[in-house]
């Protein structure tokens, strides 16, 4: 049992605990990265061929991945416990300072080593009650500090666990294997990333409610980024992970912006959060698993986590207008998807690497939306909208033949890496182009990203826009916005066209 005194509570150093917490969080992250390398290594071995050597090597690496994975969560737990300790200690010191100030006001002195309060003069009736109150307060503070200390010590000891002898270097100073049978371990959850979103969805459904709860609680960072997990569960995991990132990282400003935006956005689902590199985030407005119409908005060059406020506002405007055009209230979900690393400058925007990588990630994300929809993979009308450089991401996903979109909309596009809309593997009547007459993107030379998609020869439908410049397509009350809303909700006959041919009706799921 802790034998702390009030003097030690007062001289305690919350920053030392906070600093140690950050170091443990960094340790956990580094171990996680090492485990990722081992996963890749194991995949390479599996690709190497067949035979007992390959099998033995795969088994060996599987054991090492398991050993490494078992260290990640304990390190995170120690970090969390130390952060709680730092915050708790700082609050107690604040409380203690208030009590000491009150004592001084009444001319009382406090012996912090013994927790005693003494009056300079003879105690009188009301004076004595003040002394009693202060002693009680000090007792509470000390008890709370001892409880905090014991709780932190217990958490650290639990995370340390017992080393399991006889397993060589693979044994870890992490916790004993969970006594709960069927509790998903980190390696199991991590391995889902290599499976298709449909397989991930099937795995998630195969878990009991308790197992899903364990996975969400133990591995929010892994569950939150898995395409194929239902939106409500992803949201829970990602919000928990976002809180942890904000508590642990050195540069949380952009992450705080994300959390701040979520706090003022009703009906929002955080489908992705990642602070590595420039950061990745996906926020759905409206539950995409229940919506009849879902639109995925892919932003363009220079976008990062700091832009969350403006981008979500834009998505909200589109959702509001689209929803107003349908009979059923709330049957539209708009997802702001920054699941790729957009180029930072015009020079970088010439490169196709980000669009290729982004296209693959987008394809997987859309597959995930289909896999988790309550009415099955064809249950929702899915539109993917690419803005500016984001349209090249959409194009790359579509050109690969894997992007399962019912409609593709591009606005302010510099080109779609193709000469004709049919190269996007979709009926060209479901490819829509919005281009304001004064959009500066028209100055991008054709050879960079392909043929001008707004030209009639490209074969897409060009819808009417009445906005100006490169970023005005979502101006409230504009035809530009309304036309996008009609496409998103499959009301093709209401879209006004500059050229092209509307599809008959419905969507080609």
């Amino acid at each position, binding site marked *: *049992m*802790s*034998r*702390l*005194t009030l003097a*030690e509570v007062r001289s*305690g*150093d919350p920053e*030392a*605990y906070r*600093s*140690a917490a950050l*170091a*443990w969080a960094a*340790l956990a992250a*580094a*171990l996680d*990265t*090492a*485990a990722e*390398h*081992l996963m*890749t*290594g*194991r995949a*390479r*071995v599996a*690709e*190497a*061929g*067949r*035979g*007992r*050597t*390959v099998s033995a*090597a795969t088994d060996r*690496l599987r054991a*090492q991945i398991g*050993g*490494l994975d078992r*260290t990640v969560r304990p*390190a995170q737990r*120690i970090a969390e416990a*130390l952060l709680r*300790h730092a915050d708790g200690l700082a609050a107690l010191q604040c409380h203690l300072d208030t009590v000491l100030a009150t004592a001084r006001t009444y001319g009382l002195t406090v012996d912090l080593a013994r927790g005693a309060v003494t009056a300079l003069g003879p105690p009188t009736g009301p004076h004595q009650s003040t002394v009693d109150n202060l002693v009680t307060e000090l007792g509470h503070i000390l008890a709370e500090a001892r409880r905090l*200390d*014991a709780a*932190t*010590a217990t958490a*650290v*000891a639990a*995370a*340390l666990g017992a*080393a399991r002898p006889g397993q*060589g*270097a*693979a*044994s*870890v*100073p992490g916790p004993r294997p969970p006594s709960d049978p069927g509790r998903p371990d980190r390696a199991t959850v991590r391995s889902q990333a290599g499976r298709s979103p449909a397989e991930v969805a099937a795995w998630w459904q195969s878990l009991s409610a308790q197992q899903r709860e364990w996975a969400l609680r133990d591995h929010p960072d892994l569950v939150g980024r898995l395409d194929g997990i239902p939106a409500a569960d992803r949201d829970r995991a990602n919000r928990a992970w976002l809180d942890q990132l904000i508590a642990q990282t050195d540069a949380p400003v952009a992450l705080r912006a994300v959390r701040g935006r979520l706090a003022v956005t009703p009906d929002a689902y955080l489908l992705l959060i990642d602070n590595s590199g420039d950061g990745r985030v996906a926020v759905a407005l409206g539950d995409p698993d229940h919506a009849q119409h879902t639109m995925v908005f892919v932003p363009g060059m220079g976008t990062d986590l700091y832009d969350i406020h403006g981008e979500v506002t834009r998505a909200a405007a589109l959702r509001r207008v689209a929803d107003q055009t349908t009979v059923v209230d709330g049957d539209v979900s708009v997802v702001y998807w920054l699941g790729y690393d957009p180029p930072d400058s015009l020079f970088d925007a010439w490169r196709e690497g980000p669009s290729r990588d982004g296209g693959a990630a987008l394809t997987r994300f859309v597959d995930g939306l289909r896999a988790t929809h309550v009415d099955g993979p064809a249950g929702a009308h899915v539109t993917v909208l690419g803005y500016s450089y984001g349209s090249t991401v959409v194009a790359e996903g579509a050109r690969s033949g894997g992007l399962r979109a019912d409609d593709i909309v591009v606005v302010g596009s510099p080109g779609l890496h193709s000469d004709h809309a049919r190269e996007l593997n979709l009926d060209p009547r479901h490819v829509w182009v919005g281009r304001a007459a004064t959009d500066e993107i028209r100055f991008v030379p054709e050879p960079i990203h392909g043929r001008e998609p707004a030209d009639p020869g490209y074969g897409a439908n060009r819808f009417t826009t009445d906005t100006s410049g490169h970023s005005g397509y979502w101006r409230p009350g504009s035809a530009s916005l309304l036309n996008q809303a009609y496409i998103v909700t499959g009301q093709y006959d209401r879209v006004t066209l500059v050229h092209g041919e509307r599809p008959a009706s419905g969507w080609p799921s």
Partner: protein
Amino acid sequence: MVLAVDPEHLRHAADEVRQAAFDVDELLIRPLSRLGVPGQRTWESAGCLQTAVKAWGEHLARLAADLHRTATNLATVAETFVDAEHAALALVTATV
């Protein structure tokens, strides 16, 4: 026994495992004391943490060594397959 192995994949696997070992090495380069809370001797939690730091330090050292060993073994296995192929080829060309 079916045997079909591409040594190049094993080399790549060895590189990945080596990188994992370097990740752990990196943790050991920085002083482990940063994981503790110096100057808080009277706190039970600080004492517990000190024990944890010591255990983790020993574990990380073992882990790094184990990963380096695995990486080396994988690379050696890759070269062994290449050597075996060369030796077999030499035998075949010498006897045919």
